[in-house]
Structures are given as C-alpha cells and as structure tokens.
C-alpha cells in the first residue's frame, strides 16, 4: 500500500470518528452524572436534519452547527424533564427519545432529500505543522469540528478531574445522597449534564450532514447513536480514552470497504464494536477491576430526595 492510500484511509477514519467522539463525550458527561441517555441516535438524527436545513437556508455551516446543537439540547431537555423532573425510567425514556428524533427528523427532512449542500465547512490548515510529512496531512489539514472535538475532549477531562464542577458531577453519578449532604444540587447538576450531552450529540449529527456527507437522507445516522453507547463503555467513561476508541471505531467503519476487496465481509467486521463492547462490559463488571473503571455507581437510577 502506498503512502497516499494510508494517509487517505487514516484521514477518513478521523472523519468517521469525529461524530462518534463528539456524541461519546456528551454521553460520558451525562452518564458520569448518573443519567443514561439512550436517545443519542434520535438526537443525532435531529441534529443532522437541523444542521443541514439551517446550513442550506442560511448558507452558513456555522449557523447549521449551532442549530444542530440546539436541536440536540431540545431533545435532551425532554429526557431531563421525564427522567430527572418526573423520575421516570431512563431506559424507556431514552428509547422513546430515539424514536421521536428519528421520526421528527424524517418529517422535517423530507424536503431536503437529494439537495446538495453548497457550503461545506472548509478545512483548517495549521501553519507550519501542516507541512510536516505524513502527519501533517493526517492531523493538521482537517475540518474545524475535528479540532473542536479534540479540544472538547481535553476540556471535559480537565473539567471532570481538575475542577469543582467535575468533582460535583462525578459525585452525583456515584452517590447522589452523599453529594446532596455536601451541598450539591443533584437534580440541577444532572440536568446540565444531560443538556450538554444533547448539545454534543446534536453537533455530532450536524457533522454528519454538513461535513461527513453534505446532504440529508433519512436514517443517515445509521445506528451510530448505539455505537456511541458502546463507545462510552469501551472508553470506560474517560474522555481521553474516548478519543482513542472513537477513532478506532471510525477506522473500523472505513476499513470495511478496504477489506471488502480482500474478501472479508464488512458485516462481520462491523460486528466487532458490539462484541468488543460486551467483552469490555464483562471486564468492567468483574470484581477485580470494578473499583477503577466501573460504571458510575448510581447510573440509571432516578434520585429521590427525601
């Protein structure tokens, strides 16, 4: 294989991994605060159609991204209201959210099918670094959202581990009762984390329709929302591991086409992330590793204040 092919493949892996990374980071924050949101697929779909529509109508992909974020936020607000406000089950609410997002995006997007987006986001060339051989092309001539995702990952890591907010978020997901006695407003923290997660999922969807494949087709999220649920576990709820995991999964997404020519079924390859997630779950559930990398203790449980 020649260098150009490798560079192109790795580059495509990064592009495919970017939306996965964004949504994974959002879900990590929500799950760290104890709220599982299975509605990512729906939030991404709505984000995709909102992003595409606004980009198309306004001519500005940036406005499109903003609209995508808002779409994600508004869907996640429903989840926040139902699960935190009303303390209904997170699993069922998340699934309903996915259906809602898929349905609404299909409805809104009907008129957009087949219309190309003329104003994609341009890549940013980082001066100096972009001229480095090999890695210059891979890492430093990319779209702005790629950099945004990397920065967000670092930012979330800093927030989670180096700030008061982070301690509060993690406390709320581990032991909301103790957090409450220490003066943390559990519901408030959870609501913000869910909304933040929704924003990132929305942007992830917007990336699909504005950058990855500048167009709208129904069902263009293609199950990525569920891959994200897997990625959160696969990265053990850590934003930096999420970067590695997301681009790895992005690579698998890209490789299936390359490997198809070698006679390897893309479908069997695509099973890998899901099987790997079950294995990862098996590892996190075992008693030995539990202390270090297990799911937040209070994940999925509605918090009932006294």
């Amino acid at each position, binding site marked *: 294989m020649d260098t150009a092919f490798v560079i192109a493949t790795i580059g495509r892996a990064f592009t495919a991994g970017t939306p996965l990374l964004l949504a994974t980071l959002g879900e990590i924050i929500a799950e760290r605060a104890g709220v599982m949101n299975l509605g990512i697929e729906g939030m991404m779909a709505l984000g995709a159609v909102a992003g595409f529509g606004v980009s198309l109508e306004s001519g500005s992909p940036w406005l499109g991204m903003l609209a995508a974020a808002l779409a994600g936020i508004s869907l996640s607000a429903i989840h926040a209201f139902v699960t935190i406000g009303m303390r209904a089950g997170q699993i069922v609410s998340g699934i309903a959210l996915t259906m809602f997002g898929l349905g609404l995006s299909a409805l809104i997007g009907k008129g957009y099918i087949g219309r190309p987006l003329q104003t994609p986001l341009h890549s940013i060339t980082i001066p100096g670094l972009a001229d480095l051989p090999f890695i210059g092309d891979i890492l430093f001539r990319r779209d702005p959202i790629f950099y945004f995702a990397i920065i967000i990952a670092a930012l979330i890591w800093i927030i989670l581990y*180096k*700030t*008061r*907010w982070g*301690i*509060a978020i*993690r*406390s709320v997901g*581990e*032991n909301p*009762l*103790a*957090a409450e*006695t*220490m*003066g*943390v407003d559990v519901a408030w923290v959870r609501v913000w984390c869910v909304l933040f997660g929704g924003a990132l999922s929305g942007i992830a969807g917007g990336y699909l329709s504005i950058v990855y494949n500048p167009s709208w087709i129904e069902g263009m999220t293609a199950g990525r929302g569920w891959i994200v649920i897997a990625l959160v576990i696969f990265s053990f709820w850590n934003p930096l591991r999420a970067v590695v995991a997301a681009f790895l999964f992005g690579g698998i997404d890209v490789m299936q086409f390359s490997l198809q020519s070698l006679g390897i079924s893309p479908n069997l390859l695509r099973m890998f992330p899901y099987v790997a997630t079950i294995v990862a779950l098996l590892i996190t559930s075992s008693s030995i590793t539990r*202390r270090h990398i297990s799911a937040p*203790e209070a994940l999925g449980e509605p918090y009932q204040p006294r």
Partner: protein
Amino acid sequence: MNRHVFDSLEMTGIRKSFPGVIANDDISFSIHSGEVVGLLGENGAGKSTLMNILYGLIQPDEGEIRLNQSPVNFASPRDARRHGIGMVHQHFMLIPTHTVAENIALSLDDAPFFDPVSVINDRLDVCSRAYGIHVDPKAFVWQLSAGERQRIEIVKALLGNARLLLLDEPTSVMTPDEINEFIGVLRAMTAAGIGIVFITHKLEEILSVASRITVLRKGRLAGTVRPASKDTNRSGDTAVHDGKNMETSSGHDEVDKAALARLMVGRELEQIIPGKSPPEDDILFEVENLTVMDDRGRTAVKNVGFTIRRGEILGVAGVSGNGQRELIESLAGMRSPESGTARLADRVLPLDAGARAIFESGVAHIPEERMRFGTVANMSIQENIILKAGHRAPFSRRGIISFSAAANRTTEIVNEYRVAATSIVAPMKNLSGGNIQKVIVGRELADHPALVLAAHPTYGVDIGAAEGIRSHLRECRDAGGAVFLVSEELEELFELADRIAVMESGRIVGIVDPRTSSFGEVGMMMAGAHIPGRAISSGDKP
C-alpha cells in the same frame, strides 16, 4: 453571628413525636466550649433524634435551642453548619471512588474552581498540626478503613469551621489503636475550644473522655452525670457494683460504669419472670468456629460457637453492629460464611447453599428488616404467606401453585394471629407494621420448624402484637424447638431467654443465665467489659 466563636449551647424542653412514638420528651441538654459531653442511651432512646434536631435535620415540636445565650432555629443542616455546628454521621457521607482531597474539596465552600484539591494539602497540614489528625489526601476513600473514613469526616467538619462537633458513635468502627489516637485528637480539639457531643453506648470510653454524660432512656432524660474519679472507675472495671452508686435523678452526681449501665438500661427488674426449668440436656443446634464477612469485606463474626438445646431460647444481646446481623444472615443461608459449621439435630446445615436449602432443613427466619426482606409489599397477603414454601407441596405441585392451599394456610394464620386485614388477597402494603410482623411470624412458625432464627421480632410493633409474638416463640420452645433470638431490648431477652449470649465486636464475650444475672452485668458486657467467670465462649452449662 460570628461562626468562629462558640461559647455554649443549650437545649431545653425539647419534645418531638413521630406517628406512634414520642422520640424526645422534655429533654434538656447543654454543652460549653472545650467540653466533651457524652450522650448515652440504647438504640431508640432518642439520641439520634435529639442530635438531628440540633443539626437542623428535624424540627422539634416544642423546646428551645440557645447558642451563645441567644435563641436560634436551624431550618436545615446548611443553616446549622453556618452556625458552626458540624456532624459526623454513623454512616459516612463520602464518595468511595473519589480521593480524600476530592471529598473534602466538594464540601468546602471556598475551594477554588480550578484544581480545587490544591488548597487541601495546606489546610490538612494546619489541621494535622493543630489537632494531630493525619489523613492522606491522595488516597481513594474505598481503600480506607472505616476508622480512617471517620477521620476524614471529622476533618471535613473542622475545615468547614465547625466549632461544635456532633459525633455519632465515632468509635464503633475503629480498631483499639485508632481509638487511642482518636482520644488524643479529641483532647486537642477541646483544648482549642471546640465543643464535642459524643454519642455512644460504650460506657468505658465515655467515662474516660467525657466531662459530663447525659443519659437518655426511651425518649426521656434519665439524668446528667459526671464520671467518677479514677479510683471508683477502676473498681467498676473488675466487679459489678451492687447499685449503691446508682442515681436516676438528674443532676451531676458522680457515677461509675455499673451505675451508668443501670442508668442507661433502666431500673433493675425486681422480679424476673422465671424461665422454664432447665431443658433436657440434648443439644439440638450447634455452631462451631463460624466466621462471616460483612458487606464491605470485613470480618464481622469472628470464630463464633454456641449451642442451643432442645426446648431452649438462646438470646443474643449486644449493641447493634457487633456482628449479630451477619451471624443470623449466615445461619439463614443468606450470607455464605468464610468458615465454620452449623449442625441441626446432627445434620450439617448447608450454609453455602442459599436460603431455600436452609429453610428445607427446618429452619425458620424472622428477618431484621421486615419490609426490605420479609415481605413483598405489592403482592397479596396470601402470596406473602407462601413466599418461602411456595415451591413445594401443598402450595405447589408439579410447578403449579395451589391457591386454595395458600388461602387455607393464610386464613389459619390470619385467624390464629388475629391479623387485621380486609382480605387475604389484599396487598401486603395495606397492613400496619404490627400486622405485617404477625404475618411473617405466622408464616415462619407454621411448619413447626426445629430452629427459629428471630431478629428483633418485636421491633417497632405495638405492645399487644409484641406480647403475642413472644408467646408464639415460647410455644415454639415448649414444643421442643430451639430459638435463636437477637434483640436489642434487654427486658425482652430477660423475659424470654433461657440463656443470654452477649456479642461484642463479632465475638460472643459471654453467656449468662438471666435468672442469676442483671441488666447491669449484661449492659457492661455489651459495652466491652470483661467480667471474670463470665467470659465463656460456647456450650456452657447453666
């Protein structure tokens, strides 16, 4: 007010009632700067309610709190904390996956936004210099022992500028070494002018650290006393006093341990209802070398052995949390023991095989928390009656449940135990606490078990129902069964039991005959004092 000054705190005429219980009845309490005041009482005596009122968790019905002579009203714990009151709960409010520093930072109002743990080191240094408390800020809480966790809670309160500390049974989780170190810390804190309320039921300890002791009994003030001088105190270690020093009136009389024990457990019963004549000498149930872990993986029951004869009730006295719960759960098959054996009528009980195997061996279990374990609230009374025997005849045949058999059994029990229920298919949750307990006891005793494990069978049950339950346990004994009765009510144990084993720190520290023993003696053994001639581990003959 200035949170940094604490001079005195007084509570007068505090009264608080909950549905069905008067938790605090006209209680007065005071503490001054630099003082350790013990708050002593059995479980349910009202100590926790009083302290929760002081901490703003509960509002009193009547009474007044004065801080530094001016009346105050704490609407919430945050309010209390603002006034310099800190509380260390018995169940720690720490987040196990966080480091010590993160736990402390979360509770500090003034930690910086970025890198909040950075300030913790300096403050911990100050704390360690001032009071001699050492904690490792980088350690994860899950790695720490309970004693170390306790220390973190205290540090948290101190760094939050608490000037009056409420410690709820702080030593119950500590090793002896930790206790010694902790007493040093207490002295340093009082020297700095901090007031400390020390809630406990360990007599020895409270006598050595407190300057005054307020004793509560059944929601009322039993008295406020001063520890006796060292001489009297020492004699209390070795022998039981005959009650000359006992004082029940309020005032600041000097007391030794024996007197304090009597003050805590109440007036000695003059006439103890005699138990039956000593039972025949054949052993029905025998436990040997039983060691059991608690949920956190610590050894809760340490190499315990005892026997129960046919037709005997063995009572277990002890302060809660000394291994009684783990002991009874392991005997009931709910908690696999680390080691040890139990034999019922010469057959080894399969303690590892789950609760059903134990039940099949003829063991009944009246569990400690009846709503959590004993019943299924949303299912009918009839289904709760067959909760344990539903898998076998007559209640199920070839996998099909026989509701007529269940209904017959339920009707029998409802009639015999006078369960007040509208219908046998009404959901369990519609019953009152006493009636729920009747259903459980009825279910457990219905198959004439050879061994009954009863944990606090009359706890929180009205007097009439409690008396009924006791007489059913007696019937069980008289029918030749063995009864293992864990209770926190000494009166109940003295009334029912043929022998009383006392558990302390996971061991049986002695077995006494209620006809020749006294509340004071058992109370002292519960508090960890060794009494010569009483430290028998197993199988003693009364």
